[in-house]
């Protein structure tokens, strides 16, 4: 028998789609307005996506991933992303 927290977490995770839009946008020096124009949505929607207040349609998710030239799973995930700094540190340790 699973605890109530487990089911709440499962439900929450199904509802929420995590993304790396803000990090990727910053890395490519794109403003919210630039990204909005590129994917054909209004600027405020980019803010909603970054805050996780809106889960995009499959079509919009593909368009966003296309702008960053990354596979969709690199931009969106049903589970929280690990911090990029942690991942880079681990990669560097493995390489050393």
């Amino acid at each position, binding site marked *: 028998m699973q605890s109530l927290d487990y089911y709440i977490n499962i439900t929450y995770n199904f509802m929420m789609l995590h993304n790396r839009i803000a990090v990727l946008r910053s890395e490519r020096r794109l403003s919210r*307005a630039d990204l909005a124009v590129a994917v054909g949505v209004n600027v*405020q929607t980019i803010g909603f996506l970054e805050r996780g207040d809106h889960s995009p349609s499959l079509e919009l998710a593909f368009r966003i991933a296309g702008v960053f030239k990354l596979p969709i799973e690199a931009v969106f995930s049903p589970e929280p992303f690990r911090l990029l700094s942690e991942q880079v540190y681990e990669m560097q340790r493995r390489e050393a």
Partner: protein
Amino acid sequence: MLADEPKLHWCWIDMRPRQRRRVAVVFTYAFLLIVPIAMSDYSSHPGWAIAGLIAGMETFVWLSVMRRNGIVKRFEPKSSMRIKGMGDVVFVEGLDQWAQYFYGAPNFDAASPAQQDELLSRFKPGKRLFPAKRAVSDTPWLDERELKERDSAERWTARQVMVVLYACAGIYTSWAINQRPVHPLEVATVFVMCGVALQTLPRARVLWTESDPRDMPGELALIEQADI
């Protein structure tokens, strides 16, 4: 669903913070409830009484934060006009609208340098009529999030108005049972209030629920402050 940044001001007050919008909504509805009470003059001609009430409430809505095409975006795209012999036409005025019409750019600054040069060479000041079918825009007036939000606000409004109408039906039935006379203007006032509610509640809900457009989650605010 909120308008673009420059339009997020009402009476020179910055309406981006949600708290301010909520206060404005509360005050607007408080005033909208006072108007019919103040104007309920059943001794005058019924036609004038209702016309005055509608005019008073519509004027107040127009001046308030809930005006059409104000802080909250229009719920439908700007419609084109039909002129005999010309077909569907739209008015285009200013460089920003020219950029939007010819290149689908949100404004003049967003167009590419080549497009800007082309626009500057063709631009004519004043309100110009162009065929509607040529208008191209990659960005729809309402995107998928805004459409979802609009539909949700309209469904919510329909439910609220339905509850009010059922409550009124109950009140009037009880009055009928107790043989209390109902003035026809009272009923007319309820209909006017429902009309105003249908018009303003979806916008009020957007103003109430939508977060500050500048909000960023936690450490992402630091990224935004970076030199972009």
